[in-house]
């Protein structure tokens, strides 16, 4: 702006933005790669006029002024073009001439992300690096009568059960007398949580599915992946790989017309059906796929017209109450597959989780309860929902586990924990901590995107533009020019790396605790934390 004109309220300087572009003129070749890849158009070619004054030491010689033109990179300051810090410019720069740097103070942009009264929406994760799970330590090391086991050479069975487990007395009777026994799957305790076809690009989805198939068929690791609410490609529905897939039904019922019609043609039952009632990133606020991403393919799979935003309602509105909805939907979905497929609800972390659980204990068809804590991620949500809504997963899972214990039904309804597992890179430690607090399994989404596809999003509000389909890595974009950057084969390869290394780390945790023959669910004597209040709240040991 000019020095002598009025500044509008939303006139920001580069200093006011969260990310500042550092550009090194001496390295730049002006190739233009950075400006062409920037997903939000935060940088553009700058044409700078420079005045140079040549003054002579002698007063008798008059100074001369010359003008030159230079070309370079210029950062935009309009709020909608503010740099998101993804550093794709750095990635493509041949000379390392450009890099976004985080501001040294809180940005002012956050107060202006509501131009036109539109509250900020974004994708990604809660902007908070704190994690109580990271602070949990494994303290019961086998050093005496029970020898620590050899993580590298011992035989481990770390599978978990997904499905309603009857009380032993009832189950034995049913097994001996030939009565109906609820379906139970033996699966790997690290699951890939629900990310829809639509939220993810076709290449990302395909890569994850290929990775899961490889883990199952080549490595014998029964890893399961949930579809999210976005339908399933017809070929997958009719393939033998469906048994590795958990189908999600949510309040928009997207894609379920296709799924229901495919049932007679299915070669295998799906692993399970997840009924979504809530998610950690936007608790109590339905799903959302913004219009940017609803292209012909997505529209066809979901059974909707293209180019419109697809919000799912906050709840399943065809039923009278949540309890009723849960009971009836579990019954209906169970019936659709002849009671051969476990059906369970997924809710967002909430203080009412124990009430939901109590309800499920009285429903013999309820196969599990998945709880997605406040750190859960999303493809699109309001910023306020992501940053401030929902309950943390650690105490939520612990409360639910202790509720089941008090009812004498521990592990009969497996608890699946999600939200923030591995948010700071400590995937196995976070997962093991939740398992020892009482989770039967944990599910990840963002970590898989980071490790398997190179997602650059972070809790420091980096990138997080999954909602507008501009993902610079092609993970959450439906634009072929972007998602062709992602090689599905490489995603599959990295996913396998992730699970194999996780498996090693999990063994490195449980072996020193003297555990190998079963997953140590609820082994709360093994963990401690250096925070007295947290220790009291979680009923684990306080250690300093």
């Amino acid at each position: 702006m000019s020095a002598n004109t009025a500044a509008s309220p939303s006139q920001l300087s580069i200093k006011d933005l969260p990310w500042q572009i550092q550009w090194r003129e001496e390295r730049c070749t002006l190739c233009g790669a950075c400006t062409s890849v920037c997903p939000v158009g935060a940088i553009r070619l700058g044409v700078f006029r420079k005045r140079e004054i040549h003054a002579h030491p002698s007063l008798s010689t008059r100074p001369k002024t010359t003008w030159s033109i230079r070309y370079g990179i210029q950062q935009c300051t309009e709020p909608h073009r503010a740099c998101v810090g993804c550093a794709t410019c750095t990635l493509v720069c041949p000379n390392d001439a450009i890099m976004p740097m985080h501001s040294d103070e809180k940005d002012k942009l956050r107060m202006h992300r509501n131009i036109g009264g539109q509250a900020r929406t974004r994708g990604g994760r809660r902007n908070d690096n704190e994690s109580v799970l990271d602070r949990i330590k494994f303290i019961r090391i086998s050093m005496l009568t029970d020898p620590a086991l050899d993580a590298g050479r011992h035989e481990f069975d770390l599978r978990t059960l997904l499905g309603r487990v009857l009380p032993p007395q009832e189950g034995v009777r049913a097994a001996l007398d030939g009565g109906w026994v609820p379906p139970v799957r033996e699966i790997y305790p690290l699951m890939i949580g629900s990310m829809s076809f639509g939220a993810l690009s076709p290449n990302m989805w395909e890569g994850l599915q290929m990775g899961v198939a490889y883990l199952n068929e080549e490595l014998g690791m029964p890893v399961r992946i949930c579809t999210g609410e976005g339908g399933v490609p017809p070929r997958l529905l009719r393939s033998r790989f469906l048994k590795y897939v958990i189908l999600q039904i949510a309040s928009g019922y997207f894609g379920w017309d296709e799924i229901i019609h495919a049932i007679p043609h299915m070669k295998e039952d799906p692993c399970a059906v997840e009924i979504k009632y809530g998610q950690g990133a936007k608790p109590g606020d339905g799903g959302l796929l913004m219009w940017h991403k609803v292209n012909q393919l997505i529209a066809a799979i979901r059974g909707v017209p293209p180019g419109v935003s697809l919000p799912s309602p906050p709840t399943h509105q065809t039923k009278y109450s949540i309890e009723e909805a849960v009971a009836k939907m579990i019954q209906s979905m169970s019936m659709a597959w002849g009671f051969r497929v476990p059906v369970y609800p997924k809710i967002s972390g909430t203080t009412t989780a124990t009430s939901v659980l109590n309800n499920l204990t009285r429903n013999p068809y309820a196969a599990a309860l998945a709880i997605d804590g406040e750190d859960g991620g999303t493809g699109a949500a309001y910023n306020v929902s992501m940053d401030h809504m929902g309950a943390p997963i650690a105490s939520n899972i612990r409360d639910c586990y202790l509720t089941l214990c008090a009812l004498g039904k521990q592990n009969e309804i497996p608890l699946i924990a999600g939200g923030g597992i591995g948010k700071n890179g400590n995937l196995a430690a976070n997962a093991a901590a939740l398992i020892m607090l009482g989770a039967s399994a944990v599910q990840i989404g963002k970590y898989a995107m980071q490790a398997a596809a190179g997602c650059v999003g972070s809790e420091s509000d980096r990138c997080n533009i999954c909602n507008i389909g501009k993902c610079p890595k092609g993970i959450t974009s439906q634009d072929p020019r972007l998602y062709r950057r992602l090689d599905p084969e490489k995603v599959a390869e990295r996913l396998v790396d992730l699970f194999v290394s996780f498996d090693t780390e999990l063994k490195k945790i449980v072996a020193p605790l003297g555990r190998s023959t079963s997953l140590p669910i609820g082994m709360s004597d093994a963990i401690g934390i250096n925070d007295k209040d947290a220790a009291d709240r979680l009923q684990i040991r306080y250690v300093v």
Partner: protein
Amino acid sequence: MCRLFALTASEPVSPMHAIRALDVMREGHDGSGVGLFLSDFGGPLAAFKDKPILSGICTREGLRRLDAAMEDWGFTPLWELPITPQGPRPRWTPERDVYVLRVYDMPAHIAALPQQERELALVRTRLELRHMGLENEDIIVFSFWPDAAMIKEIGDPLQVGEYLGVERDELLCRTILAQGRQNTNYAINLYACHPFFIQGISTMTNGENTAFVPIRDFLMNQGVPGYEGYNSDSEVFTHILHYTLKVLGLPLEAYKHIITPLKDHELENHPQKAFLARLKQLCRRMIIDGPNCVIGAIPGGTMFMVQDSKKLRPGVVGGRPGLFAFSSEICGLDFAIPDRDRSKDVQPMHLDTVIVGPSRQEVTVCRQTQPLPLHS
């Protein structure tokens, strides 16, 4: 690590014989305690086969309270074995007022109950006494059951055995479980001392149970009288056996399938694959993770030994028709039954349940890969 020794004999033998075998294995226990489970008595107790025997330790005031309570509940003392300490009190053994080993006549309303309810009434009576004793720490009750008695005390096993005069005709019996403690995990507390007992079932274990907390959390919320205490991580082994036999109604051979179920590749060719796979899922909460050797006795005179699935503990069973010993170390067996055919000794492996039945004529090895005797 604790040492275990058990005898099952056609002719009654002295518990001191088992204690001497423990003494041979003394490098494995530290003198912090001894526990005895005695059953199938010869001698005068044989005359009271159906009458419950109360075993425990009381202060004088505790005994007064116990007498009053038992009288109140209608139990009448029939016979008592006075245990008078002899000689110098062993190091670490506290001075006790009264060691109780007393036979009671059941009140008519309990005696008339069907067997299952009568058994539960006896369990509840023991628990009432135990809870009473915990209030003032003046009554410790180990068992209250027909033809079964328990003696437990802190101190070196041999010295305690001599101090309490265990070598006596009144205590001759056919089933003996004996444990010499090595106190590693918990403060010396007699309720943490093996063998453990519930409803006629007794087991003792060495090693440590790394899966203790989740198993305890499961058992103590099943609403089964007696699933409480858990002063030792090994008490759950007794309760899981009780759960197998009494709650699930499965045979002894199923116990191993619950605590250490077969792995998938082992299940593959089992004739009861479907049932066992289901049982593994249903009872996953009771899977132990070792390292443990469990020796136990169940009503009717059957004795057994099992190992954890990693087989990280020693254990041997041997003897001759009429007399068999279950020992955590071979030296204990060699001491107790030197004149046996050693080639017939059995060291159970990770799939085995070694059983000597009430006839005490042979050792049976039941492998988990064999069919279970199931009845629908």
